[in-house]
């Protein structure tokens, strides 16, 4: 937090030295980037706030505001509330498991000297090279054999496998950047290697860990094909699957409005989560400043 407080002052000083152009150029850059990122999202929100019958409009602001799309999303029949909880459960579990398993693996790879380390790294990354759509059919066969159809683990375990390679690789990079002397010092102070990791490395690597958490969570939250194929019970379906089932008032009209409304509903919690996690990233930074 210390950094967060004194940093703006730093910028201002620099900007004052460099004149108005320097001062406003970065702001302009920020504005452009923010516009670029948010304009399509704005369109999504606005589309969601139109009446379903106005969904074709191109006006910047809805001519008639309406929450119908949002109430449609939460109509009792859709099971969307339940689906959100399922998504949260699956993505949350995947994130936690990925972090635990991934951190152990990453720390091992970053610190321990053993043979075939690079082979292990290679194998881990190899698994994210196969086209995802081609994994579904064999996995479905496997899960039918082991009676995993319509279970949470049928969604969690595959997502875990998609999330793990990235988590292991990024975490390994971050752990490696930590100076070795840190643990050595901690161990001199009487810490076990596990304690050294937990008490010294982990807080310092927090930006990387939380970044990995965000990435994993979003990846798991976005997973669609597996959740669709492994689950055919309404009570277990995730939000993405339920969104794909939305229909218009008749078979052929596309329920664009309610799909966008559902998209907004699904995105907002993620943004909030990101904001919370980002605090932790900044907190990790403060700790980093100590060293």
């Amino acid at each position: 937090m210390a950094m967060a407080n004194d940093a703006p002052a730093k910028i201002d000083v620099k900007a004052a030295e460099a004149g108005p152009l320097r001062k406003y150029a970065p702001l302009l850059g920020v504005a452009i980037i923010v516009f670029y990122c948010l304009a399509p999202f704005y369109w999504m929100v606005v589309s969601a706030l139109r009446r379903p019958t106005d969904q074709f409009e191109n006006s910047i602001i809805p001519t008639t505001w309406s929450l119908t799309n949002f109430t449609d999303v939460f109509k009792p029949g859709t099971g969307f509330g339940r689906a959100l909880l399922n998504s949260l459960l699956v993505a949350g579990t995947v994130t936690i498991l990925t972090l635990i398993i991934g951190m152990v693996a990453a720390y091992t790879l970053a610190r321990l000297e053993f043979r075939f380390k690079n082979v292990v790294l290679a194998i881990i990354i190899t698994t994210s090279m196969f086209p995802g759509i081609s994994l579904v059919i064999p996995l479905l066969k496997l899960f039918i054999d082991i009676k995993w159809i319509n279970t949470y683990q049928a969604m969690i375990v595959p997502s875990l496998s998609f999330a793990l390679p990235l988590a292991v690789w990024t975490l390994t990079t971050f752990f490696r950047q930590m100076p070795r002397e840190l643990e050595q010092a901690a161990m001199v102070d009487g810490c076990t290697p596990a304690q050294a990791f937990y008490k010294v490395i982990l807080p310092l690597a927090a930006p990387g860990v939380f970044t990995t958490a965000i990435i994993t969570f979003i990846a798991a939250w976005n997973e669609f094909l597996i959740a669709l194929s492994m689950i055919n019970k309404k009570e277990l379906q995730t939000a993405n699957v339920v969104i794909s089932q939305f229909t218009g008032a008749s078979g052929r009209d596309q329920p664009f409005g309610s799909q966008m409304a559902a998209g907004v509903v699904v995105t907002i919690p993620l943004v909030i989560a990101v904001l919370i996690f980002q605090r932790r990233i900044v907190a990790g930074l403060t700790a980093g400043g100590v060293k």
Partner: protein
Amino acid sequence: MSASNAVAQRPPAQTGKVRKTTFNEGTGRLAALLLSPTLIVLVLVVVYPILSALRESLYTSGQRIDESGFVIKGSEFVGLDNYAAIFSGETGERFWNAFYNTTFFTVTCVVLETVLGVAMALVMHKAFKGRSIVRASILVPWAIPTVVSALLWKWIFQADGAANALLGTQILWSTEGWQSVLSVIVADTWKTAPFIGLLVLAGLQTIPDEVYEAAKVDGASPFQTFLKITLPLVKPALLVAVLFRILDTLRIFDLPFVLVGPNKQSVETLSILAYLEANQTRYGPAAAYATLLFLYVAVVAFVFVKLLGADVLGDAVQKKKSKKGKDRDSAPPGVAMGSAAGMSGVGSGV
């Protein structure tokens, strides 16, 4: 194939050999123990399906109809026929077109995303008022589920959609030609630049302030600081981010499929070909496409890491470098061939 051999043979080889090594036996065992959860999960959910897809690619099934009009069941071993078919005649042209599209999308999108992502990270890293809002907004595109964002862009790029209204044009985005390619690139870049941004940001956050202070004291310009200090320090994180983006974009499917549609030459990718075959219940050829794509991705990743290995794998490579030769000598030839030839190049290329 060699990749899968390596995968299949590696774990038993490891336990067997750690014992023979000169350095700390405990470390090897510990490493095996600590890595086993990751490897078990990956074997169960990825290696097994990959192997079964490889097997599938050598078979054909359900393609013939008997006299009374029923599909003849059962699968038939056809060796490499499915692969040969991909490269022959019209299918071959289609394959190479998809191969070109896939490569083009990967190069263009990843370059754009890297530039944008780094810019985003720098913006997010800069501290100023309202920065948390800026940070959150940058991440919004990435947080929107792919299912929804593809639809959103489809709507925007409709003939009388927002894109044309905004630009005052009458471009038919989903027709064959540069415009459909452009629409895919715009949507993909928008969605995934934040991913690179986030990882680079995390890299930036681990750089101690003192480094910048020192640079400032030395009178380095902001650009010099970026080039000489920031970039080298975030390089490991950036390279991992780029590597994973490359792996992802090589398998690009949703956006061209939803935005432009199937069977559009301009944007057909290898993943789409694999999907279309599977959709026609031709699982053998579909698996063959998937395998070819897999090999292509593996080669690209191999080259990427080989060229930039030191930076991607950090100090481990340097430390390992001296030991690598010894490792190879002591390994039984078969395993060394399987693993080293297949995959270990990822690390040993420096």
